């Protein structure tokens, strides 16, 4: 049954990305990143239960530039995955599925994720008394 001419699924080297496909793979990518980010959540909780020295290590890591960069990435990943996850739930209910709507709510998700990330960081820095 082997045939040389069977249609192939999108080939990455010749496939022109569109918003819909980029957002789709980003949902996966952010999901994987957030799974890795759970290590930080667990580290934080275990350190809080362990004591002052362990907690000071967590705080020092978050305060470092690499820690902040990771947190920035993870916070955007979280808000993106949250917003796009809601988009998926609407799709599961059969809403917002036609092409125009998929583009509209796709851009809405990107905008909402950026706005929420900015809000969270402004809030965080103002809690610290840095603003």
């Amino acid at each position: 049954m082997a045939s040389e001419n069977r249609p192939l699924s999108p080939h990455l080297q010749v496939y022109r990305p569109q918003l819909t496909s980029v957002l789709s793979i980003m949902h996966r990518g952010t999901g994987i990143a957030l799974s890795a980010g759970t290590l930080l959540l667990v580290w934080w909780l275990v350190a809080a239960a362990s004591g002052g020295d362990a907690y000071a290590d967590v705080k020092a890591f978050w305060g470092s530039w690499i820690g902040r960069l990771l947190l920035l990435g993870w916070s955007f990943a979280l808000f993106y995955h949250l917003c796009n996850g809601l988009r998926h739930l609407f799709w599961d209910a059969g809403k917002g599925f036609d092409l125009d709507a998929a583009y509209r709510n796709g851009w809405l998700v990107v905008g909402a994720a950026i706005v929420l990330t900015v809000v969270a960081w402004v809030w965080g820095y103002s809690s610290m008394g840095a603003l």
Partner: protein
Amino acid sequence: MSLRSPLGKVRGLGSAKEGVAHWWAQRMTAVALVPLVIWFVASVCAMVGSDIGAVREWIGTPLVSILLVLFVIATFHHAQLGLQVVLEDYVHTEWLKIASIALVKFAAIALAVAAIFSIVKIALR
């Protein structure tokens, strides 16, 4: 040749039976995580810069402890369901696929237990 009837093949695998258990669990944990994530992120934003005493006091508040445990369970259940699908899609060597999925599931359980134990320890101190 299979001796199973067409009905038998479909039962348990087709629509609305155990065949969608994974898909459904991913949706249900997603729905649960929407309010839990918003609550958790907002709480953390409000606590940035707090010392360990304030953080422990917050974690130890009964309502917060309960919500945190729910958040941890929903997060790790959702994460391992999602990572399983990713590994099933991209890892084509059978033993490696099974081993990596098993590793993800063990890690999810271990991390969730570590997180829940820490929350309970702080709450009961």
